[in-house]
């Protein structure tokens, strides 16, 4: 069973091909990072234009990589939300064109669920009960997956139960905004990750909001404001900040919150392992701290390799394959939902 997955929700045009739910056959990404870099963030109209130009060549490239043709596919899967509406529409429209041309089933994929389900390509079937932390450019939430299997008749929907989420900024957004403020390139996450390696994570005691409050919600906008205020204070005093220390301390504060909240959720809810998902799961410090903490608490840890953490087409194909197995197909009227939630 072969599924082709198309991802155009944000700033990567990506196509993946997955065989029998677990085997990656192709994963091709045309990144737009350079187009958005001058603006320091993703510009929706620029993204939509670039997706349209990149999509056909990316599909071709993926088919060549997998050594197969469109007519070999059993379904065409595409991210239908959440994401930028104009960007999503390019992928969904193209997917419909492909599905129409070869009379193949169409599958609408939830981008966030795909971030989690991509782990099956490297670790096999996800083993519930588990907690997944989805940390990305637009989202930061902790969900539970308790049931085995893929949802059957009712489809996959509702597999994930929401435990907590940021009440303001997403972690990736905080990384990007702070990076922009201190003059690092875009996207900011990898830049801060790199710079932080030369800094002291304990140098500055930035706030960890809601850390000790019960529940699994978190707040990251106060942290962002605190970093900006700290830098302005130094500037006013004519002191050069040690940016590596700032980066390391800021990153540590974010990571602390993620680790504490996720492990608390896993412990309280009796979940046996943790899955890290989304672009920020590429963060070196986050990965290291989770490894340490899960080991200490006797929890399993599932962390996809870095190229499968940031946006990619393989994740859409993997999630699409699960939906196909569960019989959850879309029709040609499939719409896009910029605000599609991870858990219902």
């Amino acid at each position, binding site marked *: 069973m072969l599924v082709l997955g198309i991802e155009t929700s944000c700033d990567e045009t990506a196509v993946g091909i997955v065989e029998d739910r677990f085997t990656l056959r192709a994963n091709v990404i045309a990144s737009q990072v350079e187009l958005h870099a001058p603006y320091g963030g993703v*510009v*929706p109209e620029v993204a939509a234009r670039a997706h349209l130009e990149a*999509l056909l060549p990316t599909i071709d490239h993926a088919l060549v990589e997998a050594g197969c043709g469109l007519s070999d596919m059993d379904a065409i899967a595409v991210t239908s939300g959440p994401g930028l509406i104009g960007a999503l529409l390019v992928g969904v*429209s193209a997917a419909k*064109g492909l599905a*129409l041309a070869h009379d193949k089933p169409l599958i609408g994929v939830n981008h966030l669920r795909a971030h989690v389900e991509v782990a099956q390509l490297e670790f096999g079937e996800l083993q519930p009960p588990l907690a997944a932390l*989805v940390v990305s450019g637009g989202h930061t939430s902790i969900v539970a997956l308790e049931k085995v299997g893929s949802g059957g008749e009712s489809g996959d929907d509702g597999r994930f139960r929401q435990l907590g989420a940021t009440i303001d900024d997403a972690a990736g*957004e905080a990384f990007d905004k702070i990076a922009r403020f201190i003059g690092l390139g875009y996207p900011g996450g990898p830049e801060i990750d790199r710079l932080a390696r030369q800094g002291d994570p304990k140098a500055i005691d930035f706030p960890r909001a809601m850390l000790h409050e019960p529940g699994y919600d978190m707040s990251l906008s106060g942290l962002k404001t605190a970093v900006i205020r700290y830098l302005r204070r130094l500037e006013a005093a004519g002191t050069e900040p040690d940016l590596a220390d700032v980066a390391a301390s800021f990153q540590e504060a974010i990571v602390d919150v993620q680790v504490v909240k996720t492990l608390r959720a896993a412990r309280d809810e009796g979940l046996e392992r943790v899955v890290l998902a989304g672009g920020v799961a590429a963060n070196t410090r986050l990965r290291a701290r989770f490894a340490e903490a899960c080991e200490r608490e006797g929890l399993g840890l599932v962390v996809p390799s870095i190229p499968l953490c940031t946006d990619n087409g393989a994740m859409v194909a993997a999630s699409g394959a699960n939906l196909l197995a569960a019989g959850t197909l879309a029709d040609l009227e499939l719409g896009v939902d910029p605000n599609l939630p991870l858990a219902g």
Partner: protein
Amino acid sequence: MLILGIETSTGQSSVALVGTDGVVASASLGVARRHGEFVAPAVQFCLRQAGVGADRVTGVTVGLGPGLYTGLRVGIATAQAFAAARDLPVVGMSGLDVLAFQVRHVRRLIAAVIDARRGELFWALYRAVPGGVQRQTDLRVGTAEQLAAELEATGEECLVIGDGLSRATHELDRVGIETFAAVPDAAHLAELARPRFEREETQRPADLLPIYLRHADAKIGWEARGRMQGGAAT
């Protein structure tokens, strides 16, 4: 020959299947502007009405704009993916050319106009020639005043055809120019494209690009990305 036409550059989308003897099937959607959900089911509807499968289509033509950016991308992405998947030749055409073609029997100077939003219009001027129309100018974007001034400066009698003319009624009335409300539609598009397929003046699907005529709005989408579970806009 069976040509699939898709036109989504204005508030009214349409899809048509055109054979050697004319329109075989067509579907159109009014001003609701849900292109995203309309186009693919409409293609399926036309194929079913014609009683043929996708494998019988021999070419795809699509409106390249100028017009509504999102709509254009929906039409072009669908058209080019369909064509690429079936290895079909494509022909991309401006909706302005299609509009002018719709009044090709008029002996006056023709101005084809499409709403550009933000208080502006897209337009180009045409003249009837044997077998169709010929574009006389570049594609332009500007205000209704600018359009009226350009037409007045020609010193000729003109007919203005297009969409979004309510925006320009006042200015055009003032200089005494007749207007005719219309949108480019897929059946006319396919008819106009048919000789190009016959002469094999076609393109490859990946060559199709919208005619934007304006630079992208350089506004970062923090708000658009700030979504339910994380990412309140700041």
